[in-house]
């Protein structure tokens, strides 16, 4: 957790919003005029996916913030449960997330790994 002024946070959020809108706006500008399957777009999409894969792994294995107080074993098991349900039950997002999170909460309640919060 870092302490930043509200002004700084506002600028950061605005920057993030503009950084996202950049792609949307470019999409409108280029709509139907470019081939979205072209090499540059593909590369950017893969960069995006690889980055997100890294972020997911970090959030599960090396989380920052409140999840640090939970055990790696519980996070990994619950994550694997959710993804397995997703792959087995016809790729439905909601049941997978609910069962995965449910298993996480259940393990948290019943586990001795559960570190009490001060």
């Amino acid at each position, binding site marked *: 957790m870092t302490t930043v002024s509200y002004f700084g946070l506002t600028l950061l959020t605005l920057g993030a919003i503009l950084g996202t809108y950049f792609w949307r706006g470019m999409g409108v500008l280029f709509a139907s005029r*470019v081939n979205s399957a072209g090499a540059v777009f593909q590369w950017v*999409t893969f960069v995006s*996916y690889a980055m997100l894969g890294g*972020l*997911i*792994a*970090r959030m599960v294995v090396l989380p920052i913030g409140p999840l640090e107080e939970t055990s790696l074993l519980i996070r990994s098991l619950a994550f694997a449960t959710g993804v397995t349900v997703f792959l087995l039950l016809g790729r439905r997002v909601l049941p997978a997330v609910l069962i995965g999170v449910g298993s996480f909460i259940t393990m948290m*309640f019943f586990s001795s790994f559960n570190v009490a919060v001060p």
Partner: protein
Amino acid sequence: MITNPRAVDRIAIRDSLGYPAITLLASMIGFGSLVNESGLPLGLAIAGTLGIWGLPGQLTLVEMHAAGASAFFVILGVALANARFLPMAVSFMPLMPSRRKGIASDFALVQMLSINSWAAGLKRFPEIALELRRRYYVVFGAICMTAGLIGTIIGYLGVEMMPREIALGLIFMNPLFFAVLLAGVNNRPSLIALLIGAPLGLFFHLALPDFDLLLTGIIGGSLAFWIAQRWPRPDNSP
């Protein structure tokens, strides 16, 4: 072909109020709770949801900020996390042409574009008259955004009232949601990029924490690109 505006409204409401609205409500509950637990204000949660309107970018904003990355890298990271909006908008906007000349209103409408409205539009548009497609998109998108906004606020305020185990479960929902949403894309090279990125992300987080996500993206993405070039398939478009 549906040519009655009322009928279009009804279909848009029915399509959005089911699965998309519930999914968005749930995922944004997770996001709102994460923002609160990261010590950030409710305003950031709301602005993030409505302004970024894409869970990966929203999570990147909170996570990179919490990790102490500098503003420049946070913004670059968020932008890269949302790069998929470019090919989405390119392929989607021409499907709902404006009655008037010009694309000025498209610049406003594109803000509502998300994976949900994109998928719903691709599915429904063939049944809807050209001039009513924007109507469908706006009704659908407005309901989705409302659900996301409500979820964000519930998550932000609710996380403090829950038992600790459940509050942590809500935060844990973020990476899981994220993983299954992305794993659902029917595009093998993108999935390869996702899987290559996972170990690279851990490695760079430990080795070069300041640039971890950017290096992961550029190296992992280029590797996936290289593989995709050597393994041409018909489903290569994002």
